[in-house]
């Protein structure tokens, strides 16, 4: 046997073993965290292969600078652009267990409203740590950013982003405080007419931005008939870009048939980007500011 080559082989083997040992030591070290659903999760000290189970979580991970460690996302994870190129594990409501496992995640981050409980339970059972977030308010989103930061070892970035978000939310609240609240009709669907009601982020944003959502007391995504909208006499109509396959001008023309509607009379029908309005991610603050500007333009000159 050729001695130098044998030595090389031994050396190489030792190196590989060393690297593997270090990697394993890193993987073994884990901290026990309680997630937002109240579950105990053993999160690896520094996760290297993260799978995100919702577009909002993907946005948070990239905002925190952990995007490079994300190995899988859901179907509509379109922001930032590099996230859209990552492997897909299904849509956030229709996940594929095997696609998730095949990516060999050392951390899965999911969301309570939307991700099927059955899949999360199975993942946990198979030994994959699943950290579940559950933002239910604007301040809840800020908390979620902090919690994800802790789960992926980016506490500093998280604190910075969270502080910025909180101060921008407080600023909007300060500017609209004490103002009259105009009636807002938030339209997601065109045919049939669908709005956003109780417990949804658009509803929270409208209220925080100093408006009164006419569907505030209805089911989460209620279907309305024209009569209900006319009776509510909205002063502002917000159409989301979810209806983009439909021409916004046609929606404007549709409501234009009722010139008696205050929103039509005042020409206050607007289109907004739905991704800014219903994703509990840092960008939701932009959504809040957009709405506040549309509802109270005089306070944002």
């Amino acid at each position: 046997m050729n001695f130098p080559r044998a030595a090389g082989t031994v050396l190489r083997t030792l190196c590989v073993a060393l690297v593997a040992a270090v990697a394993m030591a890193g993987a073994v070290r884990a901290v026990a965290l309680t997630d937002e659903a109240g579950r105990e999760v053993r999160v690896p000290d520094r996760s290297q292969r993260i799978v995100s189970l919702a577009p909002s979580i993907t946005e948070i991970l990239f905002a925190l600078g952990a995007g490079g460690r994300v190995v899988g996302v859901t179907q509509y994870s379109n922001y930032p652009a590099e996230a859209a190129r990552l492997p897909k594990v299904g849509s956030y409501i229709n996940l594929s267990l095997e696609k998730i496992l095949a990516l060999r995640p050392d951390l899965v981050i999911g969301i309570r409203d939307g991700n099927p409980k059955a899949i999360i339970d199975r993942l946990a059972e198979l030994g994959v740590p699943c950290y579940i977030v559950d933002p239910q308010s604007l301040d809840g989103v800020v908390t979620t950013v902090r919690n994800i930061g802790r789960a992926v070892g980016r506490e500093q970035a998280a604190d910075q982003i969270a502080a910025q978000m909180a101060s921008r939310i407080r600023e909007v609240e300060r500017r609209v405080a004490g103002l009259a609240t105009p009636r807002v009709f938030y339209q997601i669907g065109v045919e049939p007419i669908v709005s956003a009601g109780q417990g949804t982020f658009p509803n929270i944003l409208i209220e925080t931005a100093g408006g009164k959502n006419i569907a505030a007391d209805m089911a989460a995504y209620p279907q309305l008939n024209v009569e209900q909208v006319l009776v509510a006499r909205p002063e502002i109509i917000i159409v989301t870009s979810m209806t983009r396959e439909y021409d916004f001008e046609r929606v404007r023309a549709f409501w234009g048939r009722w010139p008696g509607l205050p929103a039509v009379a005042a020409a206050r029908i607007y289109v907004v980007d739905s991704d800014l309005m219903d994703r509990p991610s840092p960008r939701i603050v932009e959504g809040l500011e957009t709405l506040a500007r549309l509802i109270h333009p005089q306070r944002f000159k």
Partner: protein
Amino acid sequence: MRVTPVRIMATSILLIGVLAVVCLASLTTGPAKLRPGAVLAELFGSPGALDAMERTILMRVRLPRVLLGALVGGTLAIGGVVFQALLRNPLAEPFVLGVMGGSAFGAILGILGGWAFFPGVTGVAFAGGILTIALVIGIAGGRTRIHTNTLLLAGVIVNAFFSAAIMFLLSVTRNQEIHNVLRWLMGDLSLATFRELVILAPLVLIGFTLIFASSRSLNLIVMGEETAMHLGVQVERVKKGLLVLVSLVVSAAVALSGIIGFVGLIIPHVLRILVGSDHRLLLPASLLFGAGFLVFCDTVARVATTQTELPVGVITALAGGPFFMYLLRRKQR
């Protein structure tokens, strides 16, 4: 061609071979690329070719899924054979007597209640199916003579009623678990575990043995209940026994897999065209072919798109429809 024990054996062995090939193909197919050689080694003796995650995917995700698919497919197919014979109606399928509505309603209550899939949701779905069937058989004159047409009508109406009740629940709920309901309604095998198989497998095996034992009576009942009675078949007893038995296994299968349409309707027809309508041959052939068909469809559902997984019910209808029409056409010529 005459049906002899030899022919039954030969056909069964052939179909078992087909089923085994489909199952093995299914085990090696999916988002995670597992080499067929390594899969065979892992299953039969010399593990080590797969790493930990690959072994988890093979043994704890794919294997239970393939086995559940086979059991459910076989159950739905024999359910269809028996119901089509008893009701003497080619449109009959295992869900027709209200199992669909009843178990779906039960499952949805469980899902909206936030219970774990197993045993919570499965349990209420099973209870819903069984209670509904009992109700339908009761309406059709359970204690005395069962009227076939009343039975069918009662089943259709109960299914329609529960569909409406489900629509109502889905429209008024503010519960976010609603998405999981849709997943269940479209049929889903992807979350199978061995816990569920341990319950379903004995049930299906015992059920099938008893049904197979009645295959001669079924042959006679198909010719007409009067004739069967004259030839010494205790028609009412056989009918009631089979209805209860089939309902039991079908409810159990549905509770675990959700509503997978089409298998129970077309597999019996396909096998009648292929092997004839003698139930001694038709029943085992349908069981095995139905099993293979559903495993095949579930495999396609797993890999058809890179974005997500399709509901298996979509594939059963898309794959089964054209195949069935082709067979019907060929038979007419």
